[in-house]
């Protein structure tokens, strides 16, 4: 396990990555008003290309710089306390890339695709069963637990969001089948794990410091859960466990697509680039060269 390296290329990449985080994050939260953030694409990219420690540093610096250095209009007064969450996202994406999970695996056989789909479903089901259901129900499988005291508006909203969540899962499996790329499955699972841990870290900060409200689309969810009878910290955690996994999975998939789109030559020059996208198909793996050399000798 290598922790990653700060070469000049990485140092130059980090400010651009932070700028992508800030501009994309600010635009999404201010304009689209949907319950996702998209403010970590740059951090994930640095983690994937340079390693866990550069990813971690990018995450921390991104949030501190957002509050202490960036002048208005892209300035945010409230980003700094969440730097720990960003650190986790950067470090995790570095580990994920080092394990080779960001690699594209095109033209997988249908058997592999089926196995990947089953694995994705199992992992999602496991996460759903142990991670989500206990928070949303009191033993019975209704999305909000006891809904008798909640307004019909929020119950309907809850079901719409639940259906959206299931649709997102189906879309990932669809992408998996259409592209026949098992890599999509790995990336999705890595993103989900990232999101669940992020939610667990960020919920206390958000609830204690900011009363659970960020001014973006996620606030509707907090209101919905609170109306359904949860206290504030529970409502914020439920909101996080719903929107963070979707958000991070989406961001991991965006980075996955970016890594495939960039030229191999460009990616391979970063400290962890070759590990992230794998060696070109058809090219001899470095270990393979050694092995055949040993045989010849």
């Amino acid at each position, binding site marked *: 396990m290598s922790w990653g390296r700060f070469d000049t*290329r990485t140092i130059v990449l980090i*400010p651009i990555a932070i700028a992508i985080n800030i501009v994309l994050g600010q635009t999404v939260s201010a304009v689209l008003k949907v319950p996702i953030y998209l403010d970590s694409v740059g951090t994930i990219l640095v983690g994937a290309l340079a390693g866990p420690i550069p990813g971690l540093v990018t995450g921390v610096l991104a949030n501190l710089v957002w509050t202490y250095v960036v002048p208005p209009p892209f300035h945010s007064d409230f980003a700094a306390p969440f730097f720990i969450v960003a650190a986790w996202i950067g470090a995790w994406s570095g580990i994920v890339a080092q394990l080779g999970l960001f690699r594209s695996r095109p033209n997988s056989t249908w058997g592999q695709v089926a196995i990947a789909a089953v694995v994705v479903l199992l992992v999602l089901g496991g996460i759903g069963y142990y991670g989500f259901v206990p928070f949303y129900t009191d033993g019975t499988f209704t999305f909000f637990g006891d809904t008798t005291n909640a307004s019909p508006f929020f119950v309907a909203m809850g079901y719409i969001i639940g259906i959206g969540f299931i649709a997102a899962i189906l879309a990932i499996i669809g992408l998996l089948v259409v592209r026949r790329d098992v890599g999509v499955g790995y990336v999705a699972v890595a993103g989900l794990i990232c999101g669940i841990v992020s939610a667990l870290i960020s919920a206390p900060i958000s609830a204690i410091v900011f009363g659970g*409200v960020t001014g973006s689309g996620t606030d509707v969810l907090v209101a919905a859960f609170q109306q359904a009878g949860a206290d504030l910290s529970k409502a914020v955690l439920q909101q996080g466990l719903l929107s963070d996994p979707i958000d991070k999975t989406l961001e991991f998939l965006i980075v996955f697509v970016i890594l495939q789109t960039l030229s191999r030559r460009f990616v391979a020059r970063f400290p962890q680039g070759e590990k992230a996208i794998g060696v070109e198909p058809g090219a001899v793996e470095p270990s393979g060269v050694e092995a055949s050399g040993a045989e010849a000798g």
Partner: protein
Amino acid sequence: MPATPSRYHRLNPLTKAIIATTASAGAFVIGGYIGPIAIIVVMLALAYSAGELGRLTRVSLLLTVPIAVSVVLVNALTHAGTTVLFVIGPFDVTLEGVDFAGQIVARLFAISASIGLFILTTDPRAFVFDLERRGAPPRVAFIAVATIDAIPTLVERAAVIGESQRARGLDAEGNLRARLRGVMPLIGPVILTSLTDVEERSLALETRAFSRPGRRHLLWAMPDTGWERLVRWLLVGALVGLVVIRLSGMV
């Protein structure tokens, strides 16, 4: 360096950063209404002395009002409580909810006023270089300063690419679906072209001894006085004291 119009502007950047951080953390640690409102009043007074009262009020309101509205709606309407003030449709507005929302809003404005005052009275580059002079790693300083330049570049690039895509017939206006469809053709090229800039920039930096080890000698230093150092230590000490008092449950 831009002109430094007031005494507050001329303070060492670290002093202003510590004022901002201890004030916003203090608003959180003290809680309630009186503490945060006192901090807001102090910050506005400092802003007045710096001639930035108008700008600070505007920036702070712009950043905080949308969040404050959310806080009030979410907590006043849905916070559980026993003392029902009045009922709007399906929502019970409770005293507890209004009280909670009020405290959060006071805290948000205190944080926003403190950080906003720092941002408006400090040249971010001066702050970063001062930190570097005090021993922050030069590469961290480079990252922070380069980010300031990278953001407008990125926005400009996005505008250019947006116009090019519209010239090619991309319809990114209208309902939500059309706008969502317009997102990928915009952010895809923006991110990819920004990344390919990395190549050129890192070569340019390498030819200028960027990776040379050792310290840089900065040719200027921000003035720093003994009493500013004292103020900084006092503020940090006061914050630590507050945290200890809160944790030990004396208040």
